[in-house]
């Protein structure tokens, strides 16, 4: 199907202007969760300078949880890669356990992790393994008290995140298992990415790629996402400590191409981050005017590629992205280009 689309659009010319910048105008690299606001889309992130973020586990499990490792240990092991990302400060810790056993009873003061919550309607579908429900403030809430401490200081500020594992699905705490069983840690690691404010990534090697690839170690793309949200400069100064590449994706008529996937892939064997962090391309998605910026790039040589979101990841995997810009889905009738 991609071949067909490419042939139809063969006459389209994609112009990609890429420049290696180390102090570029910041915007969203990777794909953070975005919320629309009067001042433009705002990334969702915790205000760690003003709030201590903790997760609250209901340890109750049923027979759908198999394996010898406790769910508490799995959650600790699943949070660890995120909270130890280099160059970022993401201090999220285990809080008091809770007996809350329904999403409806999960108040604003806790960040619930639940294996027995049945009031999420998806729980009757064994095809949905888990969901993360995040609550963020919009601009009108700035200045209001935050139930988890302090006041709301910016639009997009995360105020609560709950992870609900489907009680109809069999999970194994020890490792990979035969279908329909699912390895709990791979699912948990992905859901925690949503917990910290990331949406899905078009980079297939990333933990935040929407399909479960069995990864429990972060990829460079995941690290870049955390660095963007929680690095020394925050999103407003995302190029403060690592490299950025920015540019514009245009069609043959010179118009910017919205919602194109642009990614930088290293051309060397350099391993910037220590194992177990896995080397991967680092990606971004273009804004309505076709501009993009890829942040969190270690010093290296890169090839930059622009491609349509026509699979394996598609616009629906980041369905909040276009509405956050007041847009509908971007085009997919252009060809992949590398520079």
């Amino acid at each position, binding site marked *: 199907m991609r071949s067909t689309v490419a042939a139809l659009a063969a006459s389209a010319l994609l112009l990609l202007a890429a420049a290696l910048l180390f102090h570029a105008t910041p915007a969203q690299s990777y794909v953070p969760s975005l919320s629309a606001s009067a001042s433009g889309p705002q990334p969702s992130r915790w205000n760690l300078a003003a709030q201590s973020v903790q997760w609250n586990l209901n340890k109750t499990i049923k027979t759908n949880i198999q394996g010898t490792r406790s769910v508490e240990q799995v959650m600790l092991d699943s949070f660890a890669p995120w909270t130890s990302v280099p160059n970022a400060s993401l201090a999220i810790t285990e809080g008091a356990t809770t007996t809350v056993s329904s999403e*409806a009873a999960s108040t604003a003061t806790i960040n619930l992790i639940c294996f027995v919550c049945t009031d999420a309607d998806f729980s009757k579908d064994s095809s949905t393994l888990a969901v993360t429900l995040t*609550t963020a403030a919009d601009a009108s809430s700035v200045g209001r008290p935050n139930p988890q401490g302090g006041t709301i200081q910016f639009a997009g500020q995360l105020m609560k995140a709950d992870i609900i594992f489907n009680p109809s699905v069999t999970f194994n705490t020890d490792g990979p298992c035969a279908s329909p069983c699912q390895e709990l840690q791979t699912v948990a690691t992905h859901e925690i990415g*949503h917990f910290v404010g990331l949406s899905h990534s078009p980079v297939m090697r990333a933990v935040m790629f929407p399909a479960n690839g069995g990864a429990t170690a972060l990829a460079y793309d995941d690290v870049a996402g955390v660095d963007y949200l929680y690095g020394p400069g925050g999103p407003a100064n995302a190029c403060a400590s690592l490299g950025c590449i920015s540019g514009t994706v245009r069609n043959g008529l010179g118009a910017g191409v919205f919602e194109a996937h642009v990614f930088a892939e290293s051309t060397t064997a350099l391993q910037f981050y220590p194992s177990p962090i896995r080397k991967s391309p680092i990606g971004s998605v273009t804004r309505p005017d076709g501009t993009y910026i890829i942040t969190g790039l270690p010093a290296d040589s890169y090839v930059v590629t622009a491609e349509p979101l026509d699979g394996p990841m598609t616009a629906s995997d980041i369905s909040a992205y276009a509405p956050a810009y007041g847009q509908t889905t971007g085009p997919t009738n252009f060809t992949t280009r590398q520079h």
Partner: protein
Amino acid sequence: MKRLAGIAMLLALAAVCGATTVIPLSVEQLTADADEVVEARAVRSWSAWNPQRTIIYTFTDFNVTSRLKGASPDVITVKQMGGHADGLIQTIAGLRYFQDGEEALLFLRRSAMNDGTRVIVGLMQGNFRVWTARTGHRMASNGVPHVNAVEGSQVRTYGGTSLELDAIEARVRKAVR
């Protein structure tokens, strides 16, 4: 090879791996899991808190235009978790909400909360947007042109963008028989 996979997908699987972590469901599985399968047009959406003010739901009223399974009333309300209310935005990554006037083929269950609303089977997988292609064919897609399927420890990528509405209707009717 990719095309072969795409064709296979069109024949066997109309599925989606959108938000969160899901296992794709075929049209036949969606039909089996659904109380109702309808074609409908969205006429109104709004968001509201649950009584405990812990969850924001987005509700969409649909005018039902065709019933493929079940005996739906003429107007149904579909409920989805997440939405925007009182300065707060609740989100489940990947969930697609409806716009007024949008036509959809919906695989629905009655909400477990017994509140008269319907929920979409497979979180978002039972939500097929319907439109008329340039060829004049009526098409339906569950929102994801390509599919990422989790099958055990394997991740497979399927090609294929959408199905003709007639083809899905036939498969649903066959599955209902």
